[in-house]
């Protein structure tokens, strides 16, 4: 193929690309966690989501969204997810009794009235809605069956826990487990800013089911 032919072929290809993109398709309805698991970990191992503060994630995402060619909606969803589970700043309020509505895309409506006392919180949930919350926020790391084999799991170090065999889940009282899900610990981020207390407490029930504890 001559150089001139190649030039022509390349230019025709570029014009075709531009035409193709004019008919853009509908947006996918994935959560930020799901998009993060699908796109961010394909090139490199994932940094723990709670390694950086929320503002740091916002800056990093601007750069990485360009590299991953995310749509504005995808970038917003991933940024909200990362900011919601980010490492808290030292002087930030540790009061998790009130859900901060940073994210709307990943949050489900409250199911029952708020009780500020986490320890006495009554688990009342609609199983379908909770299953959706678990799918949108937890499956990406822990997998659909909770076995620690979600799509992002290979990129994570440490690997996500196998919830079906987790001693932490089986030995921790409900109130402590709720606190753990809210605030996070180690590589596990806290979800108080992205899930309501009702959803978090209901997920405690999901963990009990997965762990085989009645």
């Amino acid at each position, binding site marked *: 193929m001559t150089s001139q032919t190649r030039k022509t072929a390349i230019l025709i290809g570029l014009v075709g690309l531009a035409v193709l*993109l004019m008919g*853009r398709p509908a947006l*996918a309805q994935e959560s930020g966690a799901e998009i993060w698991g699908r796109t961010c970990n394909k*090139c490199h*191992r994932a940094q723990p989501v709670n390694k*950086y503060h929320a503002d740091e994630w916002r*800056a990093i995402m*601007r750069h990485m969204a360009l590299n991953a060619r995310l749509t504005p909606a995808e970038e917003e969803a991933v940024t909200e997810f990362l900011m919601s589970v980010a490492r808290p700043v030292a002087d930030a309020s540790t009061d998790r009794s009130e859900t901060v509505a940073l994210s709307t895309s990943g949050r489900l409506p409250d199911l029952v009235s708020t009780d500020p006392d986490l320890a006495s919180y009554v688990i009342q949930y609609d199983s379908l809605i909770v299953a959706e919350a678990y799918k949108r926020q937890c499956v990406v790391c822990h997998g659909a069956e909770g076995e620690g084999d979600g799509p992002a799991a290979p990129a994570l170090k440490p690997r996500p826990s196998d919830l079906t065999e987790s001693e932490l889940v089986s030995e921790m009282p409900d109130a402590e487990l709720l606190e753990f899900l809210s605030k996070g610990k180690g590589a596990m981020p806290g979800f108080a800013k992205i899930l309501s207390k009702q959803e978090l407490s209901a997920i405690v029930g999901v963990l009990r089911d997965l762990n085989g504890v009645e």
Partner: protein
Amino acid sequence: MSRTLFVRCVLIVAGGLALVVAPGNVHAQLLKLSGYADLEWTAQETNDPEDEWHNFFDNHHFNLIGIAWVTDDLSGALEVEYEHAGEEFALEYGYISYTGIPYLRLVGGKFIVPFNRWNKDLHPTFISKMPGRPPVYANVFPSTYSDVGIWASGGAPVGQNGNRVTYDLYVVNGLKGDPDESGFRDLRGNDREKPDRDDNKAVGGRLGFELANASFGVSGYTGDYAKTEDTGVGLGISFVGVDADYHWQGLELRGEFVSASQDLTSGENNDRSGYYLQAAYLTEVDFEPVIRFTAVDFEGQEDDAEELGIGFNYYLSASGTVRVAYLFGLEDSEFETNNDKLMTQFVVVF
């Protein structure tokens, strides 16, 4: 690049960002400094019968990355290359990005050219799964190639299964060099006195498709790299590329192909092509065996190259990795690429 020029570049970029941020100082806190560093030890076969193996340490990279979130639609980023223990200073990229238009990200400045995947996305040592550049990206495409110009990119979902289409289109000054003397990697050289020696701009792009577990793309680049002294006719260089990858659990399969054609003053073309295929499997104990095969065909020349790399990675943490690989030169020639190498690398991303 001299240190004076380097300092000027940094000051210009930093000054530009400061001017934008200064009026309200609203997002000054959103400056994120990051980067990566590595230490290598290499034992390399030589063509010298008196010294058949040569070994050396190299602080190949200590690169700093700065990212600034300026406004909702405006951000900037730069990467300062500090390579080979200070022997090389350069600005790998330094750009301003505008994202105010849906499905379109506009970048102006110096950026890594998005040709296939290795050049822009996979070359950093904390990402590349095997030490050393695949020969196809040293002898067919002059990686890592960054240039000054304008870049438009974006992506859009297709359907509801996480499938996506992505695009990149760019116009840059283009590669440049001496038509009779330049090696392919030398074509990246930036001449600060006259950045675009041939006056013609180079254009290129990539069209990518991403499925749930796989992705593939086609890339193209074309432009003049010089012009003849007697007639002033432009001498062109063009590349066509294909890339693909597949992921399943800890398994990653990846391959890229590049074909290059370069006009010469003699009226002939310097054509060459090459590819690499790579497989890696990340186990649950963070041990990752890797195998990579690369072949380069210099059309009409004897010095083709084939390299088989076998190695492993061990991830000490999410940020620290040890890589070890033995690279077998399979072609029996004195072309340096065909010499055997043992490479070890400790990489940290921060």
